[in-house]
């Protein structure tokens, strides 16, 4: 929240009609040296995330999923083993208490459950959702970002940020609208 106070202006937003216009603009902005920017699109466009500098190794969701899955794996197996051998041992015709093959289904389901839950929750947390308010919602016409328009915002936090220069850049790359975003 400090960031918002420090920069009362969030950035400059450009609206594009086509995804290729957006991709071109993103390339140009990155080449000019802008780094703190984000694009808003109605559907995922892989090329854009690469051009704004969000690489695969920034994405921690797979790691979170793996950790969740391992917890489920260990937890599920431990649960079955403890219940069957220590907490409530049942001697049925002298069969072993810890019969590990019989614990695999439960271990498997626990692994999948915790991996899946941590994957979904991890994605939401890393994305900072739920977040009902965000400055970009102030941009007129931003409701089309979930329909058919493509937006690119260079944020005021960018060290190179200069409002007029950014606006000029956007106007030169076929932007339909260029708006200042209030924080």
């Amino acid at each position, binding site marked *: 929240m400090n960031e918002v106070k420090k920069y009362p202006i969030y950035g400059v937003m450009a609206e594009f009609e*086509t*995804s*290729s216009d957006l*991709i071109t603009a993103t390339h140009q902005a990155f080449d000019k040296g802008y780094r703190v920017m*984000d*694009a*808003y*699109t*109605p*559907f*995922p*466009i892989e090329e854009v*995330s690469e051009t*704004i500098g*969000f690489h695969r190794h920034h*994405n921690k*969701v*797979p790691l979170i*999923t793996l950790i969740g899955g391992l917890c489920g794996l260990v937890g599920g197996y431990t*649960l*079955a083993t403890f*219940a*069957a051998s220590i*907490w*409530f041992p049942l001697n049925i015709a002298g069969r072993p208490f810890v*019969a590990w093959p*019989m*614990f695999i*289904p*439960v271990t*498997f*389901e*626990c692994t*999948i*459950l915790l*991996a*899946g*839950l941590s*994957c*979904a929750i*991890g*994605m*939401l947390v*890393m*994305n900072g*959702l*739920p*977040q*009902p308010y*965000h400055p*970009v*919602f102030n941009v007129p016409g*931003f*409701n*089309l*970002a*979930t*329909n*058919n328009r493509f*937006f690119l915002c260079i944020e005021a936090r960018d060290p190179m940020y200069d409002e007029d220069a950014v606006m000029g850049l956007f106007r030169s790359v076929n932007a339909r609208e260029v708006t200042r975003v209030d924080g």
Partner: protein
Amino acid sequence: MSNYETDAAVLDAPSPPMVNRFGEWLIIAPGHTFDSITEKISNVVLQMGTPRWWFGALLIGMAFAVGLFFALTVLVFKGIGIWGNNEPVGWAWDITNFVWWIGIGHAGTLISAILLLLKQEWRTTISRFSETMTIFAVMCAGLFPIFHTGRPWVAYWLFPLPNTMGVWPQFKSPLVWDVFAVSTYFTLSVVFWYIGLIPDLSTMRDRAKSSVVKKIYGTFAMGWRGSTRHWSRYETTCLLLAGLCTPLVVSVHSVVSMDFAVGIVPGWHTTIFPPYFVAGAVYSGFAMVLTLVLPARKLFHLEDFITMRHIESMAKVMLATGLIVGYAYVFEPFFGLVYSGNRYEKFLILNRAFGPYAPFYWTLILCNVITPQFLWWRKIRNNIVLLFIISIVVNIGMWLERFVIIAVSLHRDFLSSSWGAFRPTIFDILTFAGTLGLFLTLMLLFVRAVPTIPMFELKTSLPQAHRVGHPEEGTFEEEVAS
């Protein structure tokens, strides 16, 4: 590029051919834009108003659901003696219905997870519909074992919770595995469904006129704004969830089949059960998707998005899984009569085909093995009415299959002094019909509340979603012309 705007003239013009230059059905009708997709799909919820038939269907669904409520209330007071279950038929309609409903759910996960990993683009439009079907089907399925315990208020004893009695579930029992499998399946199906819904809920938020509706969709959309970083993590999440759900869905019906296969009852104790059950589940699930999608497509005018391509593909999957099921039907008697060398197994097979329940067995063969053979003909695969009938016949056949497996195996015990028979009571019928009503009610509420087709995913299959002028992609005009 005027094509990016909704061009009413284009959409209202006589429909262009729905096939490409190779004569294959298109996944989406030509001429659509991002905006027209949003408009057409979100308007079913936001603009169209509630059609009269919807209220009629809801009334029917709710009437049956009230029957379910009544039957279950009586059960809670009187116990499961009100059902036709007896000794030796301790599992009857309840478990039949449980397996049937769980099986139906499997198509949803197959479409949303396995076909996603296989990059089958046609799955997109029908994925939300079938995922929703999965959730509601598993809800209906869950009612049966819970109420079959006779004491649903202590159903939490199924879970490994520390308690003053010091008792824990028996982790070597497939019934406990089933609790874990089904509850994991339900949880992850809901999670997958909701995660897939978030971007579309944000579209609904941005399109809704009324501020109350906006707030409701906005709350569930969690402030999704389509940020590229979000999309990147989002896509990874969808892929990972699909990867996790793929073995999960196979495990669920395998575990369900082990409820039977681990026991020594003749007709249950076979190693063929897990793959046979999974194939049967997918088979019945696709039949149910067709049963639901064919009318919905017509009633909500979604022919542009649910094209003959989807319908034909589903028919093909049904044919393929039907053949696997047929293969199992051939091998079951082989195991029983020839391979096992066990007199009880031999008797079971003969009793199944010629005993008191023989009509059910032969109807099941007719429904599940003979009927899908019609799907070899392209003309039949493209005939909506015939497909609808076949899908219902397959659903009936798959229900009969579970009934034959359960009741026929149980009603002749090892000792002839313990032989019995099963006859459903009115409460059996009310409960089963009631879950059908509950399912119908929930599906009807679903189609009025959320977009039935994933809009954002469908948009990625438009040619405009790819870079225009890219040397490897055709331009939009070329795609339309083709």
